């Protein structure tokens, strides 16, 4: 088993609640996710796994509780969520590749946008420094322009495509790819932002059985590189092999959590025993 890293948690969830128009789906979730940790989330269908995952990057706005990430409570609607989402990747069950973009553009769209945004902010700051002749402020070195940003992003994207073994698909459109290829590219798109954590919502559930393996293999490669991951999955074998910790969600709360051994070999609650008897 991988050593469990200590230090301050990357994400701290406290009392997380989520209701949809009166229907309470999450009912107080507390969890600390450490750097480099791999967490599998399991539970019966409709128990709130997706909702929990989607609250972690505020794809759904929590209706109660806090989510601390990078020193800020991102559950607070006043924080700049886009800035934090750059650091929280997400991989969807249905892939959701941008259909109007080629594979390489899918991967580079957000990195280029974000780099340009930072460039603009630096230029604005330099301009003000010069304009106001603030002697205390140093001018920030601008070593890139839009062209080099694009070229660098594309070089990195090609590197990533090599990593996932789809180099030759750079200029293809998503509609020409198989499900497994789409999901691997969706994962590459998430990695391209160099996030601190990637959230996976049943990444293999929409795949034909023969393509599940290639996606799980890629995720194992990420695990080897110590990428922090939160994975909602029905692949119990995969969860057991890769996860450091498993959360069993039931009726909107974490009903049981523990190492794969504790969860699969020695379940404590009746609910988990029933659930495991159905899926294993």
């Amino acid at each position, binding site marked *: 088993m991988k050593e469990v890293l200590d230090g301050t948690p990357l994400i701290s969830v406290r009392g997380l609640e989520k209701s949809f128009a009166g229907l309470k789906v999450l009912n107080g979730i507390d969890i600390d996710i450490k750097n480099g940790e791999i967490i599998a989330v399991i539970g019966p269908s409709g128990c709130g796994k997706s909702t929990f995952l989607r609250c972690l*990057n505020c*794809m759904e706005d929590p209706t109660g509780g806090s989510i601390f990430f990078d020193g800020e409570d991102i559950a607070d609607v006043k924080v700049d969520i*886009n*800035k934090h*989402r*750059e650091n*929280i*990747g*997400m991989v*969807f069950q*249905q892939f*959701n*590749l*941008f*259909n*109007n*973009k080629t594979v390489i553009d899918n991967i580079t*769209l*957000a990195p280029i*946008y*974000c780099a340009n945004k930072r460039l603009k902010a630096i230029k604005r700051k330099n301009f003000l420094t010069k304009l106001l002749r603030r002697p205390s402020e140093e001018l920030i070195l601008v070593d890139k322009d839009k062209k080099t940003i694009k070229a660098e992003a594309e070089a990195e994207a090609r590197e990533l495509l090599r990593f996932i073994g789809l180099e030759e698909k750079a200029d*293809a*459109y998503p*509609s*020409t790819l198989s499900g497994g290829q789409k999901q691997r590219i*969706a994962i590459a*798109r*998430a990695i391209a*932002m160099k996030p601190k954590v990637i959230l996976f919502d049943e990444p293999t559930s929409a795949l034909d059985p023969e393509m599940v393996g290639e996606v799980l293999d890629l995720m194992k490669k990420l695990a080897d590189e110590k990428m922090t991951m939160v994975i909602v999955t029905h692949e119990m074998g995969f969860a057991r092999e890769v996860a450091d910790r498993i959360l069993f969600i039931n009726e909107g709360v974490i009903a049981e959590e523990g190492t794969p051994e504790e969860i699969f070999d020695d379940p404590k609650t009746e609910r988990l025993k029933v659930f495991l008897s159905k899926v294993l």
Partner: protein
Amino acid sequence: MKAWNLFYKQFITYGGYHSVLDGLLATVEIAVFGLLIGVVIGTLIAVVKVMQKNKLIIKILEKVCDCYVAFFRGTPMVVQLLIGYFVLVPALGISLDGIVVAIIIFGLNSGAYVSEIMRAGIQSVDQGQLEAGRAVGLPYSVAMMKIVIPQSVKNILPTLGNEFIVLIKETSIVSFIAVVDITKAFRSIGDANYEYIVPYLILAAIYLVIVLGITYLIKLLERRLKRNERSA
């Protein structure tokens, strides 16, 4: 034959073709710029309509858009032209060419119709596309502009083409505000001798050719966009 000779004299010898060409240009200008303005306004309204209504300002904006759409869909375009040219422009104390007023009114009017088309187009794009854009850190506006709206435009291209055809045909009313479009140009030719058969038949033929031409171009464009999606 007499009718044809009279038309020929008016059209060629007395230079009627000048005003016909100018009129054709005016017709095309009003329809093209009208549609462009309409697409911009329509897209903005459509985005307001599909936004989550969790802020007061968006609720207010939506009400404003509703009133706008109701007005431009609920009154005849001629009336809108008349109000624009004879009421608003004098009231604002500015002087605007009839053709500029026509372009603005056609743009505003078509914005109301395009907003409905565009909204259907946006809703036809899978919600996951927007979510994936937001998930990588793009702001709502950027995700809409770069991902959702390009895909919705592809879906609504035929309907948008129809709107353009409607605009082309509706330009025939701009003579109400003293703009010489192609209809007005042919009417003047007929008025010269009270001989209308030839000019009006030719006028109809020209509209028909324009409309068929646009229909063909849209088909071509659609096919190109589709091919773009499939190419490996």
